[in-house]
């Protein structure tokens, strides 16, 4: 349990750093952006919006930095993230409608990519030096291509030209959202291409890591022993793979941040109504309260996912329960 406790305290510190950075960045900004931003608001500006902008940049408040910081925490605990400049709605309600899309999309793709990559890597490691090795450079190429580039190419090829998949948006415009079969089916169909893009981009990392661990593992005595006592090959591979997968699981929490970073742009390409799309729109409109809220939510979600991955590792590897090593 000590290991998990240490990880948990790390994430608490990380959350504190992220929140503090989020608070300080607008205050470090030179000039007076408030008038500039108020000019951008379309239509009537509400007093809440002005207040939200003033709080964000610490202008016209007649308060010290420290008491502003305390006030910022107070608002956070109340769940108040300010009011979006362009949308004129509270940031928290904008986020509440976008977060489930992103968590669903990235969650499903990460799990798929991990499972596929681990299986492929185990086989590549076992059949090392065979023709299967030619998969490696191809997978590396897909991994090196930016997510948004791969997404656009996939979108054009399979969506616009071949019409194999529906594109743009998260579900068909002709169905009404709700828990019925038509909507769920449409959801799955529209999710296919974004998921394929993210899996294509991220699978190589898992595959190569697993292959290398597998090759190292195969030379261990317990694998030789398993072969010597006549276990069928399938069982020997499974035996070695179960031991080789541990570093991959340990790396899971590290990789989540990278996958999220890339997947945010996939949303932009496919016009998926998630947090990534929202963030990039907010950046283009210089909607700072929204940018800040999104960054906080992304960071907190990634930290929660990291903690989940750590718990998984803790369950899988009994050694972590006794040793203090992380």
């Amino acid at each position, binding site marked *: 349990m000590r290991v998990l406790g240490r990880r948990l305290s*790390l994430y608490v510190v*990380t959350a504190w750093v992220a929140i503090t950075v989020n608070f300080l960045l607008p205050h470090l900004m030179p000039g007076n952006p408030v008038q500039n931003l108020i000019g951008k608001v379309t239509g009537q500006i509400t007093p809440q919006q002005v207040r939200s902008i003033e709080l964000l940049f610490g202008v016209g408040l007649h308060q010290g930095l420290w008491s502003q910081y305390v006030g910022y925490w107070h608002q956070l605990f109340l769940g108040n993230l300010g009011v979006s400049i362009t949308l004129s709605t509270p940031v928290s309600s904008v986020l509440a409608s976008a977060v489930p899309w992103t968590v669903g999309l990235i969650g499903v793709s990460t799990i798929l990519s991990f499972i596929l990559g681990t299986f492929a890597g185990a086989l590549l490691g076992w059949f090392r030096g065979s023709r299967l090795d030619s998969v490696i450079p191809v997978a590396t190429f897909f991994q*090196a*291509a930016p997510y948004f*580039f791969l997404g656009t190419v996939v979108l054009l090829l399979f969506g616009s030209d071949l019409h194999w998949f529906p594109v743009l948006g998260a579900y068909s415009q002709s169905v009404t959202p709700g828990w019925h079969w038509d909507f769920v089916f449409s959801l799955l169909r529209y999710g296919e291409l974004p998921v394929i893009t993210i899996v294509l981009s991220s699978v190589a990392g898992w595959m190569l890591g697993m292959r*290398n661990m597998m*090759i190292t593992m195969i*030379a261990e005595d317990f694998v030789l022993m398993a072969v010597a006592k006549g276990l069928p090959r399938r069982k020997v591979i499974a035996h070695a793979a179960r031991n080789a997968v541990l570093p991959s699981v340990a790396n899971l929490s590290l990789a989540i941040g990278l996958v999220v970073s890339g997947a945010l742009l996939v949303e932009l390409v496919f016009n998926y109504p998630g947090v990534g799309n929202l963030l*990039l729109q907010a950046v283009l409109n210089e909607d700072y309260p929204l940018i800040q809220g999104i960054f906080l939510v992304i960071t907190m979600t990634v930290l929660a996912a990291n903690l989940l991955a750590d718990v998984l590792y803790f369950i899988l590897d009994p050694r972590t329960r006794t040793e203090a090593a992380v």
Partner: protein
Amino acid sequence: MSSVRLPRSPKVLVGVGIVAFFAILTVIGPWLAPDNPSATNFLPNLGPSGSHWLGTTALGQDIFSQLLDGARATMIVAIVAGVVATVLSVIVGVAAGYLGGKTDDGLSLLSNVFLAIPGLPLLIVIDSYLPASGRSNSFAIGLIISLTGWAWGARVLRAQTMSLRNRDFVEAARIIGESRRRIMLFEIAPNLLPVLASSFLFTTLYSIGAYVTLAYVGLTSTAVWNWGTMMYWAQANNAPLAGQWYWFVPPGICIALIGTGLALLNFGIDEFINPRLRAAGLSGKVRRASGLPRRPRLGYTPVARRSPGRVVVTPARPTPSSTNVGA
């Protein structure tokens, strides 16, 4: 590990070739460009032809010139970010691994915090607060990218330093009375070279991706030509949907290629560090020439040794000491 020589597998050769090609392009690309990449001298939306190898943009700019010219900005930011991040990771990682104790706790916490915060969203947030002069400054962008990219290297270097710290030769240097700084710089640092090289390549790869992404989103100056800005303009003019693949695809392919080259080089370093991977990476030709079975056999780790002129491979039973390598 006195001489750092990469295994001469096809993967590494291809990697070296690709990276060398783009390194040369970084230097001479802007001179090779047939036209000024910003000049709107030509008819707009031309397809590829003899006079415009990749056609022209909606503004009548030569796309091939933009591709050649953009190599430099892309690579300079990547290299600045890669170098700064590597220096940071050496300082933090080696100090944490060697000094241990409270220093280690603090520095490890610092790098773990930076690892846990998702890099690209942080970059986007910082960048969105930059004034226009900062966004067009390649060095400023490189510095910011390095801030989000150093932690991974620090973690790997710390682990390697910790394993070196208690080796006999370091112990000996300590007993002789060498200073702490001398031990870190002259005893430990040279043995970190493969890990260091691998972390530099990884960080450069990350930086290219991060820079191009920022440019594609429109968060760097759109007047500086790099492969990300090219894709930004292509997307802004709906080039992909209009079938102008020659505008959108070449910069993406270039990015993927240089990334593949860097990753292949990294495989070479992995094989250098872990002899078992080296044996697995041998091509069929070398296997046949040295009388190894075509399929690798269980319980054998062939050792590749270099004699003048050719690679000699001797099949060897793993000895108890060699089974610990990489485990």
